[in-house]
């Protein structure tokens, strides 16, 4: 394996991912601006609630 090339490829992947995420943020902003607060926040609520609902309840740990 050419380690230098391998590491360069990893750096490129990281850079490409970030650029794609930035582009997605532009698309997402267009989506948000096209929706009423009720519409976008309903989707956000489903997403955020599902994340927190999936967390185990651990009780007071300390």
């Amino acid at each position: 394996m050419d380690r230098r090339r391998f590491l360069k490829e990893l750096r490129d992947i990281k850079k490409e991912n970030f650029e794609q995420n930035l582009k997605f943020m532009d698309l997402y902003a267009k989506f948000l601006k096209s929706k009423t607060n009720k519409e976008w926040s309903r989707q956000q609520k489903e997403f955020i609630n599902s994340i927190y609902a999936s967390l185990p309840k651990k009780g007071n740990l300390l």
Partner: protein
Amino acid sequence: MELEFSGKDIILKDKELNSLDKKVIKLVNLIDFEYVIISGYVAILFGRSRATEDVDMFIRVGKEEFYAFYDRISKNNFYIINAENKEEGYEFLKEGIALRIAENGEFIPNFELKLPKREIDRLTMKNKIKVKFSNFEINTSEIELQIAFKLFLGSEKDYLDSKHLYNTFENYLDKKKLYQYIKLLGVNMNVAERILRLKPGEFNG
């Protein structure tokens, strides 16, 4: 997204509250001293599609006020994760250690409360704004300062939060103020331009 403005305040009507919004409102309703919510939750409040482990806030509170606050949160199903009692909690705050508060039985999300110790903290508190949503009102950092601060922090998550706020408020921002904050925080202007995709001459005013 429908945004309204009243002076410095932002009005976000008809937002359907998610479970994080509800926890924030529940805790903020127990605060009777000066506070400001900063960082990731500000982006989430305005639609960013992510969750967070913690909601960061600065508080300005004296010992007796803090003790009363501790009693109120204890009666309302919250606890301090990293302090045994109110005396220790207040000592931690004074020493610059953030207090982590969560609802009983939970660890995440939690609220990270700190006293303002640095210039940037005091600036954030001084220039706080009100956000009114769904019949509630909370104090958050100024959007321009938040965008600049997220650029300063510089992780991918922070850059995306910064970009989200910039995109959302693009038509309402005080661009001159944003430019001044970016300069004040020592953010590389090329980085700011690349992340925010500023149009040529956007900051020349």
